[in-house]
């Protein structure tokens, strides 16, 4: 293998100096001349018909420049999913009914926030209250209030069904009959949230030429453009979404949100720039949070712990509209079936409308819930059969080259190696046995160890499906890299620079990145679906190759040889066998301009995954290819539990990970650390609490996220399954989402190992642990 100079190295962030000096401009920092401040009027009711809206007094208030309601809109529905089976179901501004507390009814733009706030209080809305329902299982009952009609293709006698995924293979009943042990368990996961530091924010500026300029905190500017243009009835080209730095997203800034639509509408009506920035309270009360799931698992195994069959029912509370509910019931199936072999499976997932806030993806999008359930039950089975939990996982882990039932290959799947290595590094078996022995000791501080695994997909086919990248060589051989990628902190711009540096033999410092702007850059898959490095990365590689081909052609003519005889090194092109015959990039570019009728050197590259597949798999049946790069990992958590207070601490998390080819090990570690921390918060104390659909802990005082004192020690083991060889594409896999899942699962199992407490519900609050400890004690008496 040729020596790599830039990829595979812990290059420091391209945007680091800008960020560390406070100069990075986030959406909240954008200020335009004449900018107005927008505020949103929200429903105080979970379910109500809107009888009338009177905005007269608000419009008359001095300083108010525009008021908008549904009558100013085109009444075009939008949705996270918009397919023939699942057409868009949400108006960006409520038309005749509201379905959750906080639903957007009107918007006001005024000269300052206080005036806008005052104007909101002057809008009179008449409601007719409707009965509401707040849990999916209640909402499914036939006597529940109807929020939206059940999906026409769902024949089961349920109400409020937004979507159904049903799939499987083999004969589960036969396999359960033959199984040595069959367990049936039910797990419930809670409502958690992203807690991105930068709140939801947008500045929209419409001018008389018919153009809408937008700055918005997002995970992908091209998706925002498409959805804004569609819902406003503007040509795509008239909507320009600019680049801003993004203060964290974690899944919570994908899709179009009503306040973004309202800011745009206010700007169109007032012909002034309009800024809407959420308060933290508004983020909690009005933005979308993650997906809670109820999971019923029936698993049959052989005497040695080999899985024979699983039957799984997932119920998702999608909130007032579909949001990503019909995606999460599909994905939950994926996170169930990838890591371990399941010869017989029956899966059904229901997405159910309730009068709660709309849900959206969050880091893992279904994986944290599914892996918590599967991995917990796995340990319960291992305990019943007296098997080593790591060994039992190893027995079931898919091996490299296995073909999944959807015909995807897991290719160089490193899960088995991850399990082996993480168990070895942590002395898992020894510590596990020791903790079991010490469970009955007098000490009130118990230590425990637990393992969890997950596997993930990357870069699947979802709009805009592909990425394009352009590289331009400047006169002196430095490079402009033009990409639609949004760097929300994960390091996209740095990694893309490393790729171009490698392919063009130009130092990373000589590359300037122009990113994310929909007017001046190219379409990009976006910073979700865990595929930016894979999809945009390979587009960048192709663009670099394309430019180099042109440059080498000129150099060959100048050096009087064939391009195949040439090699590029640090902005110079040399004849391989006679390295003193060389030409600098600067000279070659000048020669191209002089002799090729002015051709400057520009390279273009395009990439999409699974290029022979027409589209994404069916959300309803799971048929169709899903991904061509599956990552995997095994994580071990070591915890300490105080049996007097029920308080649990995660001391250390060790991660063995297969992310394919790691482009930037320092960035990979950063992703893992962040997910361990998020997993810790979700496992132990973070929960969005609601009463009748209204969030009751809408601040960081009441929704606690981990602080520096809660820092978990982390350790990593690289299981590198893909090497990069020049000329082949880069095989990278996900590294930014699923580790939340592994951490929660490992923590649940470590809690059991330490105390004998098995919780079937997240988060693992001290009072829940104490209650179970009490039950265990009573049983022993």
């Amino acid at each position: 293998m040729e020596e790599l100079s830039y990829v595979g190295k812990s290059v420091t962030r391209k945007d680091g100096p800008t960020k560390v000096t406070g100069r990075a401009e986030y959406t909240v920092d954008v200020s335009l001349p004449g900018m107005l401040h927008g505020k949103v009027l929200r429903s105080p009711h979970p379910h109500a018909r809107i009888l009338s809206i009177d905005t007269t007094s608000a419009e008359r208030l001095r300083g108010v420049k525009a008021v908008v309601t549904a009558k100013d809109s085109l009444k075009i529905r939008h949705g996270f999913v918009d397919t023939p089976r699942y057409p868009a179901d949400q108006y960006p501004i409520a038309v005749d009914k509201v379905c959750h507390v906080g639903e957007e009814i009107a918007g006001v733009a005024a000269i300052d926030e206080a005036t806008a706030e005052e104007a909101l209080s002057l809008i009179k809305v008449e409601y007719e209250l409707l009965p509401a329902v707040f849990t999916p299982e209640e909402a499914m009952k036939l006597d529940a209030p109807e929020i939206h009609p059940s999906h026409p293709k769902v024949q089961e006698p349920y109400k409020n069904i937004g979507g159904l995924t049903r799939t499987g293979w083999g004969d589960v009943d036969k396999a359960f009959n033959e199984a040595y042990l069959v367990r049936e368990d039910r797990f419930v996961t809670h409502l958690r949230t992203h807690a991105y530091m930068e709140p939801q924010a947008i500045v929209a500026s419409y001018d008389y030429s018919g153009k809408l300029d937008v700055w918005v905190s997002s995970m992908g500017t091209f998706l925002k453009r498409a959805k804004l243009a569609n819902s406003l009835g503007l040509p795509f080209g008239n909507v320009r979404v600019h680049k801003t730095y993004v203060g964290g997203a974690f899944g919570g800034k994908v899709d179009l949100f009503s306040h973004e639509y309202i800011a745009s509408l206010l700007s169109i009506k007032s012909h002034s720039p309009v800024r809407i920035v959420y308060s933290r309270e508004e983020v909690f009360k009005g933005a979308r949070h993650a997906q809670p799931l109820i999971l019923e698992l029936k698993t049959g195994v052989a005497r040695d712990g080999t899985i024979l069959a699983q039957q799984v029912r997932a119920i998702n509370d999608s909130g007032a509209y579909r949001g990503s509910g019909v995606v999460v019931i599909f994905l939950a199936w994926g996170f169930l079936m990838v890591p371990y072999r399941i010869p017989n499976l029956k899966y059904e997932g229901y997405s159910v409308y309730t009068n709660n806030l709309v849900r959206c993806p969050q880091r893992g999008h279904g994986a944290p819930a599914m892996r918590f359930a599967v991995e917990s039950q796995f340990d319960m089975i291992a305990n019943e059969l007296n098997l080593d939990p790591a060994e039992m996982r190893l027995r079931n882990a898919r091996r490299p080259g296995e073909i999944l039932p959807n015909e995807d290959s897991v290719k160089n799947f490193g899960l088995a190696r991850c399990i082996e290595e993480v168990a070895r590094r942590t002395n898992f078996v020894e510590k596990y046995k020791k903790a079991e022995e010490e469970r009955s000791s007098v000490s009130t501080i118990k230590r425990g160890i637990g393992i969890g695994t997950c596997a993930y997909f990357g870069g699947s086919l979802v709009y805009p499906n592909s990425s394009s990248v352009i590289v331009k060589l400047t006169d002196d051989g430095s490079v402009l890299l033009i990409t639609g990628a949004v760097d929300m902190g994960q390091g996209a711009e740095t990694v893309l620079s490393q790729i171009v540096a490698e392919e063009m033999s130009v130092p990373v410092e000589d590359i300037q990145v122009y990113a994310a702007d929909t007017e001046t850059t190219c379409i990009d898959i976006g910073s979700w679906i865990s595929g930016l490095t894979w999809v945009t990365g390979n587009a960048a590689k192709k663009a670099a190759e394309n430019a180099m081909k042109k440059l080498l052609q000129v150099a060959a003519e100048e050096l009087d040889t064939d391009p195949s005889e040439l090699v590029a090194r640090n902005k110079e092109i040399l004849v391989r066998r006679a390295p003193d015959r060389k030409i600098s990039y600067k000279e070659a570019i000048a020669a191209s301009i002089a002799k090729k009728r002015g051709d400057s050197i520009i390279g273009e590259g395009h990439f999409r995954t699974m290029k022979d597949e027409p589209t994404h798999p069916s959300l309803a049946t799971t048929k169709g290819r899903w991904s061509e790069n599956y990552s995997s990992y095994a994580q071990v958590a070591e915890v300490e539990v105080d049996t007097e207070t029920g308080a649990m601490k995660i001391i250390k998390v060790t991660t063995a990970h297969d992310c394919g080819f790691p482009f930037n090990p320092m960035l990979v570690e950063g992703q893992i650390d962040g997910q361990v921390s998020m997993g810790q918060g979700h496992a132990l104390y973070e929960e969005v609490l609601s009463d009748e659909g209204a969030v009751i802990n809408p601040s960081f005082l009441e929704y606690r996220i981990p602080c520096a004192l809660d820092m978990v020690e982390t350790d990593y083991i690289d299981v590198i399954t893909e090497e990069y060889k020049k000329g082949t594409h880069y095989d990278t896999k996900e590294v930014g989402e699923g580790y939340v899942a592994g951490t929660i699962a490992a923590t649940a199992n470590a809690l059991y190992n330490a105390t004998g407490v098995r919780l079937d519900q997240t988060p693992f609050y001290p009072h829940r642990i104490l209650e179970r400890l009490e039950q265990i004690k009573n049983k022993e008496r």
Partner: protein
Amino acid sequence: MKKKSKRLITLIVNDVEYEIATYPNRTLLEVLRDDLSLKGAKEACDDGVCGTCTVLLDGKPVRSCLLLAVEVQGKAITTIEGLSSGERLHPIQQAFLDNGAIQCGYCTPGMVLTAKALLDEKPNPTDDEIQIALSGNFCRCTGYNKIVKAIGSVSAGKEGGH
């Protein structure tokens, strides 16, 4: 709601004196961001718990969202924009870069200033002391591991001294 009349105040920010006419109910954060265009300090929680609005007041870290601008006249205010001077980044900033302590960067200015106040007072803090000092600055991206490491590396003089 009738507004109170503005007052003329003098703030010393990053060694520069500014005369500002402002309402007495405005926070230091608002004045820094809206009047002086110093936008490194951010708002994120509205409750004074997250630390993204941290600036230094006579060298001590404070939450600029909880202070009124009129209260801090005559005191030396340092914002992230005043930390580096000349061609080089401040050693703490360099350490954040070198150790991968930055992801989305939204909390970074507040983190760096909190670290500066700590290191000015305690040039060689233990990891525990670093964690305690940072406990009022939230970061959702990094899990804090690399931030603590970065600050530790400055104190140990590995990044060219403090």
